[in-house]
């Protein structure tokens, strides 16, 4: 037998051996992904919550629901809607990427375990935290799901003086010299470059000073001291792209791996164009509160004052120092739909070194409704 044949035979034997070992003594995560019984026997409060997390990640809703100690208090549909949303939202199309389990309290018959759920959405990862009460049932631990039932809005008619702009653009057949509708006039009212650990950040605010709605974006070009361009970046989703007349949006543009010491000047390029838009819905930002470090954040509630469901809300917070200069811009997508008149919390993280300099803030909300312009 030559060396090649011997190697092939050895590889075949090793493969068969590994398959047998993996089948007879599978690792817990493999068992979970295979959809078999719970990966870990729920012999501890943490393992009970970990099993529940695995089942949510696999979207094995029925199995997850059946494992709950308090399932008699709500239906399986309630449980699924609590996780995926009652109305279409970012969460509807999200999958659970991973989760973390942390025991908070334990006794012989009950425990409290924190479950942090990291959801992968189309706009990035969002995190939810649930504190689960876990009870011992015989030799097993079972988690109680803290169901958050969606508030029910009483049936009613909400009168809306619907305000909307439509645009007739110049047609392809128009003669040369025929007039087009003017692009909205926008103005950068504040701009500031800031050095951060991961590069340079351009912060600022853009005002729509026109009487028509504008689709806006901002790009910036960093130039060296010899006026040669270093890099050009846009604000992407770090600004509200639809501005109604006299509305102001903050913007944040990141230049990774650039040092402010190398920058001689910054060239800002605001862009605007006419778009059809609606003035509704109006969203109230209530109880805005600046929470100091550690864990600095801006918290508050969004209240949809209109009668239509807002499927995705994007919160932008501008933080100012004592002199009124923009100190930082942060944002957060709310992964739950905003129902009329129902408050939904938001929590915008603030870097700790910046939180100490913040004196005031301003919040705006960009909203998107399925089937609507906003």
């Amino acid at each position, binding site marked *: 037998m030559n060396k090649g044949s011997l190697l092939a035979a050895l590889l075949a034997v090793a493969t068969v051996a590994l398959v047998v070992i993996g089948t007879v003594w599978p690792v817990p995560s493999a068992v979970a992904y295979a959809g078999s019984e719970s990966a870990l026997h729920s012999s501890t409060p943490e393992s009970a919550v970990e099993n529940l997390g695995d089942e949510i990640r696999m979207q094995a809703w029925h199995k997850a629901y059946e494992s709950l100690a308090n399932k008699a208090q709500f239906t399986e549909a309630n449980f699924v809607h609590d996780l995926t949303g009652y109305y279409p939202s970012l969460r509807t199309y999200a999958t659970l990427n991973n989760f973390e389990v942390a025991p908070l309290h334990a006794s012989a018959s009950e425990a409290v375990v924190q479950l942090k759920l990291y959801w992968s959405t189309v706009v990035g990862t969002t995190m939810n935290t649930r504190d689960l009460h876990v009870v011992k049932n015989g030799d097993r631990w079972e988690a109680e799901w803290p169901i958050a039932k969606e508030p029910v809005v009483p049936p009613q008619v909400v009168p809306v*003086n619907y*305000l909307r*702009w439509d645009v007739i653009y110049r047609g392809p057949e128009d*003669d*040369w*010299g025929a*007039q*087009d*509708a*003017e692009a909205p006039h926008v103005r950068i*009212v504040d701009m500031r470059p800031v050095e951060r650990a991961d590069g340079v950040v351009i912060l600022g605010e853009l*005002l729509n*000073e*026109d*009487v*028509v*709605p504008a689709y806006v974006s901002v790009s910036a070009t960093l130039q060296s001291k010899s006026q040669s361009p270093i890099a050009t970046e846009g604000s992407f989703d770090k600004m509200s792209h639809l501005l*109604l*007349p*006299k*509305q*102001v949006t903050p913007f944040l543009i990141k230049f990774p791996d650039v040092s402010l010491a190398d920058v001689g000047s910054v060239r800002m390029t605001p862009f605007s164009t006419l778009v059809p838009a609606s*003035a*509704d819905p*109006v*969203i*109230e*930002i*209530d*109880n*805005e*509160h*600046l929470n100091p470090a550690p864990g600095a954040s801006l918290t*508050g509630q969004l209240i949809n*004052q209109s009668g239509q469901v807002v499927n995705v809300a994007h919160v932008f917070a501008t933080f100012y120092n004592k002199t009124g200069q923009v100190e930082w811009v942060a944002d957060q997508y709310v992964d739950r739909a905003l129902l009329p008149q129902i408050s939904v919390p938001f929590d915008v993280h603030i870097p700790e070194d910046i939180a100490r300099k913040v004196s005031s*803030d*301003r*919040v*705006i909300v960009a909203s998107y409704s399925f089937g609507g312009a906003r």
Partner: protein
Amino acid sequence: MKPRFALPLVGLALSAMHPAFAQNGNLNLPKTVAAGDAFSIHSTGSGQATLFIIGPDQVLKRTVQLGETTYFTAGALYNAGHYLALLATASSTDSGVFDVVSQSKPADLSFLAKPSRLQVGLHGGITGAVYVFDAYHNLITVPTPIHFELSNPSGNVQTRTVVAHDGAAWTEMDSTPQQGVDKFVARADEVSSTRVVAQVPGDPCSLRMSARRSGQQLQLETDPVRDCSGNAVPDGTIVTFTETYNSDQSTVDVPLKRGIAKVEMPAHDGATISVASGVVLGNQIHLEK
């Protein structure tokens, strides 16, 4: 035209542009022809020949009897420019040049009015530029008076008369203190072109709100919002209400509807409520504890 004739003809055309071959006595050409007008070319000699007329974007070919006059009907040549005439017989080629010029009567105006929308009360804020063309879309380069007129619905009219040189004329107009959709007309003889210029209100002036308690809620409402010339600020303009209480704050961006902005916010004793629109600040209201 057959391809095998094309190259010699192009060569002939190029050689004819040299001053040494500028004109041949066998061809009697007009010096200029107005675009679209009828014209004739007389030739001398005897026998048959082929007459080519080559110009910008246009080539004519006729079989002619030497010694006779060849007539071209109206509209035969319509592009203004420099033309080359070639008279080819079996043994020789004669050539000459002539110009087709634009008609002097304007038939079309290209009118660029900027901007299509601007604030009221701006001096020289509106510009209008006109290019004058004849019926065949040739630029009319002879001096042509252009009459500009900007009129708004309140009856205010501004007029200017500018003579177009080399086919172009331009002017500036002021936007009026009153908002409205203005008609901007450029006229040359009986031809006119109209553009619409919207004069819109400026920033809100003396923004003012009032508050009324309704249980646990506070009903906030602005007075009709106007600019400093008294024009109503258009609906949809965002007005921001901010309520500050203890160390918390509530904010609502409300669009103007029917000239006013109104909203309900929680009533917190000791709160201070402010109103703003864009960079314009309004009054403040302080709720007693």
